[in-house]
Structures are given as C-alpha cells and as structure tokens.
C-alpha cells in the first residue's frame, strides 16, 4: 500500500483561519468589538470634518477680532496651524488611520498648539475618572443600601417616600441640580466658598501624595461630586429595589427561612448576592460611560476634565482632540461592556460553564 498516512498535515488555508475565528466565541467577539471601534472612528472622522467652520476660519475670526486684516489673519493662521486643510479628505483619513495604528492620536490644532492629543487627554482624563468614578461608587453603594431597605420594608411609608423621591431626583436635569446646589451651598447658606466650586485644583497646588494636595482635591471635588451622586443615586436605588423585590419572591429565600438561617445570612448571601448580580454588570458598564457623563457638570464647575476639554475642542473645532476623545470614550465603553460580561460570568455560576451566552 502507498504511504498515504505519512503525507503530513494539510496546510491551513486562509479560509480555515476565518472559520476558526467565526466559530470560537471569544475571537468572534473580539473581531466584532474591533469592528465597532473602527466604524465609530471612521464615522466621527467624517462627521466632524463636516462641521461648519474649520479651525483655520475660526482662528482667522479671532485674529481679525484683535485687529488684523483678513489677509494678514489668513497668513498668520496658516503658518501657525501648519495643517493642510486642502488635502483631499480620503488622504487625510488614511494618514490618520496610519498614525492611529502607531498609537499616535495626532496633535492638537488649536487648543494647545501642536501638543499631542494623547498628552492632552492623559492630563485631563484622570480628573474625570476620579470625580465621576468616585461619585459612581458612592452612588452605587448608597443606592444598593437604600434599595435593599426599601425592598425589605415594601409598601411602608419609607418605601413610598424613597421610591418617589428617587424617581423625582432621577428625572431632574443634572444642570438644574448643579445650579440648585451651587445656589444653596454657595450663596444662600454659604457653606462652601465659591472658589471651591470653580476649577479642579486651587492655583499653585501641585499634584502629589501630599496632604495639601489631597485636601484641596477633595474640596474642589465636593460639590461637583455631590451633583453626580444626586443625579445618579435614584437610578441605583430603584434598580436595587426592584431586583431585591424580585429575588425576595424566589423560592429559595422562603426555603432559607424554613431552614432556620439567620436573617443576616439570608440578606447577604441569599438575597443580596442574587439581587445585585444585574446591578454589578450595570456598574461595570457605567464605568465605561464615566468619560461621557461629565460635560455639563465640568462646564459649570470649570472642572479640568475630559468633558470640559471636549466642549472647548468643539468650540474651537479642534478636530484631533475631538476625535481623540471620542475614540478613547468608545474604547472605554467597549472595554467596560466586555468586562461586565466577564464579571457576570464569573459571579453567576449558571453562566460560567457555557463560556458566555448568546448575544
């Protein structure tokens, strides 16, 4: 017989690789996520450039305001900005994508001339992460506690009060909440000095692990942080309440009581763990939206974070900055969603085994 058996393994064709990716759940998800990021980046690239007015014109406007004639202004702007806005859009796009793959987000056009966008973002991002992130955690914890309380004391006065109060607070636009707080705390009751409600840090204080820095940090964080907490607290409380009510109706809770288990154990390991499952994934996802949730508040409190940076960039039509922020935001959201899925799989043994469910 001929030695067919010793022919060696067949070569892997490109088709085989594609099939492997398609059938493996994790690889498929990865590809999908990358695809989404790419679409978002491309869309934003073109949409932003479709905005009326471009950086050159805006700079020209402001230069003309300060007295230059239009020719002088144009010449000045062109030399300052050093960008070629006349190049075809497609070439600009390819340039951008190439740079992106090298991790280069480009340089700022206007806001901080020729400073790398990545640096700008890196400077501002920690502030937003800190303020919104801390508030998120505080809001989550308080919300969980109040939600459990309301669920256990269902239909009592406390429950009705908490529920309606949460729903009401939740719906008040955060701008209004912010202004009310500033009014009350800063002006009417004079509890907080007004200069702590502007900026993220007092002038002259350097970041570092010093007490002065930390104290100042919190002083400036206090009011905006409270606004964040107020505007998100209601949502967590209501979510935890309904999840807990639903869990309390589950058979195993009754059986746990029939088994004579102490109340504390039931509240934590039986009701608590099961009721908070859906919330923890919400939390993970919210972390991703941290970056986006801050425009208005940072604007009002002049807090030097990403949100403020974005609104400034929009005003000046600083394309690279806008793109960079949107890109970073999208990636954060996608990462946090993936993290949330993983987390849920880890926490809920029912899902763990199948390696993640369907869409």
């Amino acid at each position: 017989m001929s030695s067919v058996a010793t022919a060696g393994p067949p070569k892997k064709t490109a088709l085989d690789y594609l099939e492997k990716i398609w059938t493996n759940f994790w690889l498929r998800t990865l590809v999908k996520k990358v695809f989404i990021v790419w679409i978002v980046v491309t869309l934003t690239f073109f949409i932003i450039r479709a905005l009326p007015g471009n950086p050159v014109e805006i700079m020209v406007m402001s230069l003309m305001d300060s007295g230059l004639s239009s020719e002088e202004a144009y010449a000045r702007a062109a030399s300052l900005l050093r960008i070629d806005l006349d190049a075809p859009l497609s070439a600009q796009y390819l340039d951008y994508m190439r740079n992106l793959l090298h991790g280069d987000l480009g340089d700022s056009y206007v806001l901080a001339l020729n400073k790398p966008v990545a640096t700008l973002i890196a400077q501002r991002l920690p502030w937003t992460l800190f303020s919104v992130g801390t508030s998120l955690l505080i809001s989550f914890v308080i919300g969980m506690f109040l939600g459990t309380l309301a669920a256990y004391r269902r239909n009592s006065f406390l429950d009705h009060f908490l529920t309606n109060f949460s729903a009401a607070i939740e719906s008040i636009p955060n701008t209004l909440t912010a202004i009310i707080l500033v009014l009350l705390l800063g002006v009417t009751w004079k509890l907080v000095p007004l200069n702590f409600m502007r900026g993220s840090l007092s002038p002259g204080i350097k970041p570092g692990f010093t007490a002065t820095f930390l104290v100042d940090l919190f002083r400036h964080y206090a009011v905006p942080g409270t606004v964040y907490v107020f505007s998100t607290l209601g949502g967590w409380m209501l979510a935890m309440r309904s999840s807990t009510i639903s869990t309390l109706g589950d058979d195993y809770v009754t059986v746990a009581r029939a088994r004579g288990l102490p109340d504390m154990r039931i509240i934590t390991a039986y009701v608590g763990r099961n009721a908070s499952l859906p919330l923890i994934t919400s939390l993970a996802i919210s972390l991703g939206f941290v970056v986006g949730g801050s425009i208005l508040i940072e604007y009002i409190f002049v807090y030097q974070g990403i949100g403020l940076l974005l609104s400034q960039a929009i005003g000046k039509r600083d394309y690279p900055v806008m793109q960079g922020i949107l890109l970073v935001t999208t990636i954060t959201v996608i990462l946090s969603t993936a993290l949330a899925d993983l987390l849920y799989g880890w926490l809920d043994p029912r899902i763990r085994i199948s390696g993640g469910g369907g869409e």
Partner: protein
Amino acid sequence: MTAMETTSTSRPSRESGLLRTLKLLARNKIGLLGLIIIILMTLMSFVGPLVIPPETQAHTEQIYKPPSAAHPLGTDFQGREMWKMAIHGGRDVLIVAFLAGILTTLVAVTVGAVSAFFGGWVDSLMMGITDIWLTIPRFLLLVVVATLVRLENIWMLALFLAFFGWPGLARQIRSQVLSLKKREYVEAAQLLDLGAPHIIFREMLPNMMSYIVIAMINAMTSAIYSQTGLVFLGVVPFGNNWGVMFSLAYAKNAIYNPNAAASLLVPMGAIILFQISLVMLSRSLEEIFNPRLRTGV
C-alpha cells in the same frame, strides 16, 4: 378569518381599557396629581400665550425686582415679568417633549418588535446598529452632532432627540416582545398564517400597550433632560423657552444676585415641576399595570 377579526383585542377593550385605567388612576392619588399638573401646564403653555401677550420690550426700570404684588414672580435681567415669560416659555419645551417622546417610541417599538419577531439576520443587523449607537455616550454624541447640524427650530430638535433616543428603548421593547412571542396566542396566530404585520400590530402590541405608554412618558422625561443640557451649553439657541430663560439667567450670574433669584428659579421650577409630574404619572401607571408591585394579595 372574520371570526378572528371580531374577537381580536382591538377596539372595544382598548376603549374600556382607557376608562378602566383612569378609574384606577383616580385611586392612586400621586399619579392623578401628576396627570392634573401635566394637563394644567399644557393648557397654560398652549392656551396661555393666546391670552397673554408676550413680553418683548425691556423695561429697564424694573430690572431684577423680587416677587411682590406688582410683580407676582419677579422680573428678569431685562425687567420682563417672569410670570408672563413662564407662560410663554412652556410651549417649545413641551412640543419637543411630546414630539420626541412619540417619535422615539414609534421608531423603537417598530424596530424592537420587528427585530424580535423575525429574529435571524434581521435581528442581528438591527441589534448591531443599535449597539453601535449605544456605544457612544449619548450626550457626547448629542453635543457634537448638534453643533454640526444647525438646528433651526424645535421640530428639528425633536427629530434629533428621537434620532438618538430610540436605540435604548428598542432593546427593551425587543426583550418584551421576545417574551411575548412564546405565548400561545402568538403561536396560534402564526399557525393561522395571519401574516407578520397583523400579528405584531394587532395581537402583540395591544398587550404591550401599557408598557409602551410608560415607555413614551419616560422618553418624554429623557427628552426634557437632554434638551435642558443642550440649551445650557448654548448648542441650540432659539426662542424664549424655560431652558433658554434659565441659561441666560445663569450666564448673567443671577446666582450671585439675591434679587435675581426669581429669574433663575422660575424657569427651573417650571421644568422641574413638569418633569416630576411626568415621573409621578409614569410610576403610578407602572404600579397599576404591573400587579406584582401592588399591595395586597
């Protein structure tokens, strides 16, 4: 076929359904209060301007007058009567809210129901698009695109808000429909080959009516929420509605001026009042339609 038509859940039950809902609502005082306030404020905003002439002139002699008998709600930075401004200021806000709410709900329901009903690639495609939408933080997107598309008037704003608002709701509708799909009457309708549009719009949706109504009210609150933020950032400047009133007041530093408090608080109060009324109504409806949340056995 005709037998099915006459016994399907369309006209008769919906009418008595509305009446029944109103009766149940009457027992739930908070919701009723909310509904009354909404109706009153709507009347005030639409009928009021026909009766009370708008304040167009500046009266520099009465700038920032605090509330008194002569000036029931005080005056703003141009000396205009706040109470008149308040009456005129509601129209834009409410139109945007109602319109955006209805549009968002319509699109979300259609997309969600079709997607859930047909499943397969239709579902994947629609949910894929929805996911892309949902990935970018909504307000960020709103701000950026609002600067792009010059929003000339409130109708465009409503459209714009609906355009960005439907994905979230679509997902929820989809899961509702998915759970309804498993019920027997849907299977029965499918066996009878009644056709997808019929099944969706005359069998399933009427059973989800309560959910849809509540979703619409929530879409309205969301529209007002976003609207306020957008106006505040100066991204959509027009008219003289509540949002613009308080943004201007804030820009003029009314916070620091005790006499100017009214110019800030009146529009804020109007927005908050309407918003809370919507929420109260929504919550009461939820309690009515979801018996598990009710008290008693």
